[in-house]
């Protein structure tokens, strides 16, 4: 360590311009190599983190997905058995159903709301930075335990929502504790975190040249036409980006469902998200082999959706020429 510190002044020592520009000379490449090495040295802690904390467990889970591993004792190689068991696991199928409904309903709603709000703010509202922060806040908080607990209270049988409904003489159900509504409250929670895509949309809208709108207005295009024929095409790269990110995020939703359902995925499995079921299998049933296999299936599903998104993007995303 001390050697490293002692040498460091030398590194900043100005090299002669000749040596620096002398590309291909032995001394120049040598120096570059040293500097690269030093850079790798400094990168090492993060690189190590990637291997130890991400890549290592990733590979381990791939291996465990082919074993019967109960978390406490030894594991045995069982080949494809975990994957075969998935075919006949009714709860897995119901978890997939819940997750798909969640992704396909909440992501489009969230993006539509984000775009709509972004367009309103883009018109030059006074105090824009304030609004931007206010709307962005839920994105930061949405995945937190505190918000999930708050959600539970708001949508509880005697929560805020029902108190407001009672004011209008409507007797609301226990939203989070009824199988018909529980998933809906989680979709609303996800839609509520529209701030992050909104900020990106807002930046995108700023990039659309004003002259297009002026030219269209001169040609007599109304607001709707301008939206469909200028705003949307110009924003497609941004929409695409948001779509890919939000789909990936939505598939991995865990905290909200875990807290709102108390870890059960209930009532009657109506909020049993894929990741929640994975967690139950791994840490509740000590079925870590199966849970690992589930993780890899999820990776394949998300990978598949992302690939389809990228392939389809050729046909609708406009990058401008």
């Amino acid at each position, binding site marked *: *360590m001390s*050697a*490293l510190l*002692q*040498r460091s002044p*030398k*590194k900043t020592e100005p090299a002669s311009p000749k040596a620096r520009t002398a590309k291909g000379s032995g001394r120049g490449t*040598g120096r570059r190599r*040293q*500097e690269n*090495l*030093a850079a*790798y*040295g*400094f990168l*090492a*802690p993060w690189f*190590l983190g990637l291997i*130890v904390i991400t890549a290592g467990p990733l590979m381990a889970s791939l291996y465990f997905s082919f074993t019967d591993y*109960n*978390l*406490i*004792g030894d594991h045995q190689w069982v080949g494809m058995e975990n994957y075969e068991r998935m075919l006949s696991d009714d709860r897995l199928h119901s978890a997939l159903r819940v997750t798909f409904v969640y992704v396909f309903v909440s992501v489009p709603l969230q993006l539509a709301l984000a775009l709509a709000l972004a367009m309103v703010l883009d018109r030059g509202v006074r105090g824009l930075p304030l609004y931007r922060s206010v709307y962005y806040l839920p994105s930061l908080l949405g995945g937190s335990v505190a918000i999930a607990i708050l959600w539970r209270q708001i949508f*509880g*049988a005697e929560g805020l929502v029902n108190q407001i409904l009672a004011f209008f003489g409507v007797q609301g*159900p*226990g939203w*989070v*504790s*009824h*199988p018909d509504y529980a998933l809906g409250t989680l979709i609303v929670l996800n839609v509520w975190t529209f701030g992050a895509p909104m900020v990106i949309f807002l930046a995108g809208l700023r990039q659309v040249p004003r002259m297009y709108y002026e030219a269209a207005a001169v040609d007599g295009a109304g607001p709707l036409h301008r939206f469909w024929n200028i705003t949307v095409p110009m924003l497609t790269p941004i929409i695409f980006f948001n779509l890919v990110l939000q789909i990936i995020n939505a598939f991995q939703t865990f905290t909200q469902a875990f807290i709102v*359902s*108390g*870890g*059960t995925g*209930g*009532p*009657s*499995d109506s909020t049993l998200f894929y990741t929640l079921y994975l967690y*139950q299998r791994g*840490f*509740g*049933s*000590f079925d*870590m082999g199966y849970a690992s296999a589930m993780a890899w299936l999820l990776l394949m599903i998300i990978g598949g959706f992302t690939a389809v998104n990228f392939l389809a993007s050729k046909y609708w995303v406009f990058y401008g020429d």
Partner: protein
Amino acid sequence: MNIPSGGVRTRRTAAPLALAAAFTLLASACGGGSSAEDGVVELRFSWWGADDRHSNMQQVIEIFEADNPDIQIAGDYTDWGSYWDRLATSTAADDSPDIMMQEERYLREYGDRGALADLTEFSDELDLSKIDPLIADSGDLDDQTYGVASGVNVYAILADPEAFAEAGVEMPDDTTWTWDDYVEISGQISDATDGEVVGTQSMSYNESGFQIFARQHGENLYGEDGELAFSAETLTKWFQVTQDLLEGGGQPGASQSVEIEAGGPDQSVLATNTGAMAHFWSNQLGGLTASSDRDLELLRYPGESESERTGMYFKPAMFYSVSAGTDHPEEAARFVDFMLNDNQAAELILADLGLPANIDVRAHILSSLPEADERSAIFLSDVEGDVVDGNPPPPIGAGEVVEITKRVSDELAFGNLTPEEAAEQFMTEVEAATGSQ
């Protein structure tokens, strides 16, 4: 300072050095032995519970440390729900607490897989001679003692006499009441108060109640080899009682029950003064009396005199276990001995971990028990004459049955399953979870 002039060589050493430094930092972060330099042994003790228990336990630990300056105990506590996730992960990582609280439904899971030490090996440190014979061998599996019971518990009905009075319904005679009486009384209470006070909290969310019911019918939840030991008819009858209560209004509706169950004891109908009866373990009487601010009473289960035999049973409330991987098993055993056999510890814990397993200690604290715990002690001795036998230890996977029971109860309450279908689904899922076909 002797700086080599070669430049090239020295800078080349920078990369490995940085790498080495990173490794050192990482290694020192992961390390940390369980033994301090000055000969003091550090042990970790983990338990589950609510705030009351946490502060009591800390006090107990302080007394133990004062008496045993060579041992330091670090408390590691959480609530019941996350306890098992945490224990599973730390055990898998070979970092389990040296001393841990265990439960009947999980003890086998850990014991069979070699995660728990055999406590009979530490007879010099750990005295098990004064343990109530009723539960003395409840932590034994295959001739090994994986856990020693902290106390004794009984599953019963907790009733709020004030709620009964409010509804103008008489408290039942619990030595003779039948399941029909239970449904009828519950309905009467709900009716009389227009649902302001419900008769009873749903009983289908805990399989311990069904175990009593099965025993009343000469069956049991699990047999000697961990197999299912009840018939589908009995389980259907059990779910039918809940169905009758739902239809007769004697218990809260489905959606409300989900919320009540999720809230734990503090959200139970007794704690919120919105119900007259609920099913609980006897050690919870003290806590619920406090949160409800009422003088709750323990009642025998309905149907004790109705069918073939009585069904109520004593259960070891919790177990103290020592990790098989601990570096200091003797010291850990000494701490367990203190928890079990020391009067000072019992004076603080009282009946929170069940009525103390050590008979002498139980006698010692009996006079100092708060009123509610004293009632539960009297109740236990009253019931003792009726208890026919104990239960065989539950099979591996019994911990999963907790969730299965909740899920099936939800489906039944929301009307997605009939009692027959609920019984069928419960049996299929439990068989899959416990590996008994």
